């Protein structure tokens, strides 16, 4: 056991990479939930994004096209969910579960011939000047562009939700869909857009796992990341900036346990690998202080 052998700067740098897929999926789900819809299918959309992204990237040789394919794949799957809960008025919890089961089955069917192939390389970008700063440079400024895209997405989501008219309408729909409907807003249309945004983000998050983190395709490779993203939205109290804390906390636990495994700590590997899940539960217990959007999970039916 040799904890001093862990390189802490490297650990913090890989923390940002480990947090990115969850951050991407969680920011999408946050928007969906702020619009008043609970989509428990994040895991299914992530794994579909992972497989779509991998296949597109593999055939085109371009990771960027892969990410585009993943976003489209995730969004396409989310439309299925949207039709069911918005037009056919089905139960959101059960439909979300169905989406996850469906996505897991579909991804392993589609990805059958792609097991064990390596993904095309996704380049890291050293930001000029900033990446040369000692210690902080390697931690913050030597990542691939998706890491920064994830951060930009969080910031822009915060700005749109809190400082634009569109954000206000979206929140109104989520807080009280009857009142928003009475004011003349198209509740169903707005929710469609939110759900598709959520699907696209989950797809991106999944593709980040299959194209950058691992980087190859294996069955069921998201391993609960979608559920953790859901947990982080609750932890964040539906606030974008707190999402960052949650995702980095989780990324930290994941990376730390991997490093401890590598450093040969006397704790069995299985106990270490369950730690991210236990950490998520603990975080949910301690920090479930936020107030959920008023209409979250309720079916909207314009009867008048």
């Amino acid at each position, binding site marked *: 056991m040799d904890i001093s052998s862990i390189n802490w700067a490297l650990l913090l740098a890989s923390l940002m990479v480990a947090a990115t897929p969850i951050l991407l999926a969680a920011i999408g789900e946050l928007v969906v939930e702020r619009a008043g819809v609970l989509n428990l299918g994040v895991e299914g959309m992530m794994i579909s994004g992972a497989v779509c992204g991998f296949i597109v990237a593999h055939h085109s040789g371009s990771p960027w096209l892969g990410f585009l394919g993943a976003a489209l794949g995730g969004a396409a799957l989310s439309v299925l969910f949207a039709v069911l809960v918005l037009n056919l008025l089905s139960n959101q919890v*059960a439909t979300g579960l*169905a989406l996850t089961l*469906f996505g*897991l*089955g579909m991804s*392993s069917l589609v990805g059958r011939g792609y097991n064990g192939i390596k993904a095309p390389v996704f380049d890291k970008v050293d930001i000029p000047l900033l990446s040369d700063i000692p210690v902080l440079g390697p931690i913050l400024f030597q990542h691939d562009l998706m890491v920064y895209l994830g951060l930009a997405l969080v910031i822009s989501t915060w700005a749109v939700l809190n400082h634009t008219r569109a954000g206000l309408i979206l929140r109104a729909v989520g807080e009280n869909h009857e009142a928003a409907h009475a004011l003349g807003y198209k509740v169903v249309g707005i929710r469609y857009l939110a759900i598709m945004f959520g699907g696209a983000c989950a797809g991106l998050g999944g593709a980040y796992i299959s194209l950058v983190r691992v980087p190859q395709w294996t069955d069921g490779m998201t391993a609960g990341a979608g559920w953790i993203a859901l*947990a982080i939205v609750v932890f964040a109290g539906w606030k974008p900036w707190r999402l960052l804390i949650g995702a980095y906390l989780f990324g930290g636990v994941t990376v730390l346990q991997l490093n401890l495994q590598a450093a040969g700590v006397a704790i069995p590997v299985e106990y270490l690998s369950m730690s991210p899940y*236990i950490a998520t539960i603990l975080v949910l217990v301690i920090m*479930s202080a936020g107030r959920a959007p008023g209409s979250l999970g309720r079916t909207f039916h314009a009867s008048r």
Partner: protein
Amino acid sequence: MLKLEKRAQPSQVWTYATPLLAVLVTMVAGGLMFAALGEAPVTAIRTIFWDPLFGQFAAFSRPQLLVKAAPLILIAVGLSFGFRAGIWNIGAEGQYIMGAICAAAVGLAFYPLEARWLIFPLMILAGLLGGMGWAMIPALLRVRFGTNEILVSLMLVYVAESLLATMALGPLRNPDGMGFPGSRNLSQYASSANLELIARTGMHWGVVFALVSVILAYGLLSRHIFGFNVRLSGDSPKAAAFSGVQPGRLIIACMAISGALAGAAGMFEVAGPSGQISIDFNVGYGFTAIIVAYLGRLHPLGILLAGFLMALTYIGGEVAQLTLGLPRSAIQLFQGMLLFFLLAMDLLTNYRVRFTKTGGA
């Protein structure tokens, strides 16, 4: 222009018709999917739904129907209580694993003592308690801290899977197994074996337990005040609160029932068909049971039928894997589709579709 009108009462006719309709539509959609995979659709559907029962090798596959249906029915009956009351235990897979681990641990602790009258019942008890204990974690956190039980119960599935691997590689590993992972074979140990009660039927103690649980659940739901409170809490939480139902107690009771039954399912599996604790012991019964519960309309008798249907798709899937080379995931997809169609068609149960002349609504 189509218009939806909410029914005052869910339609009786559609309540029974939608599951059948959903199965038919899934067969058609599944046929299209198989055609897209390059299989003859009719052959594929027949291989999955007909051959296991009446085909060439039916003598081998028919007993499997009971073997696969028993855990699905046990778990789904347990889940149906919570689902009716709006309590979402979706971590039955974890409770199933923990039931199996606890039961196996008890059985192995007595090895090689020959005392079936003591050990087998103790193992059932351990299975029940193991599953129930695991389900109590999300239940108590929900009651005490208001933590979301969906997420906690699901996270615990991953924890249970890690524990399963630990047990198969460590404490429960077979000391005579020449270093291979996995425990001793419990189905070859006379005191713990969950044997076939009638030869070549697949009928084992788990099946008996499942049938009894269906009957008890039916009685509890339709004849007992607890069942009434469960249904009331699901339909109208406010009315339930006014009539004095304590939500905390209801959550704990529902989670305890579903956890215990899932744990028992794990016990019967580990002592019988599976035989040992191994890394790949769980095969997703806990998740498929969610579909079974819904397909059965959260009603014990419906779940009984749905359990057999779902077991059939499992076996048919294995047959199709062998004879047609269809991937296992195709069946998973098929099951997911079934739940989708069922949820979509529930619209007809709860709403009336009307045609209006102009677009005015």
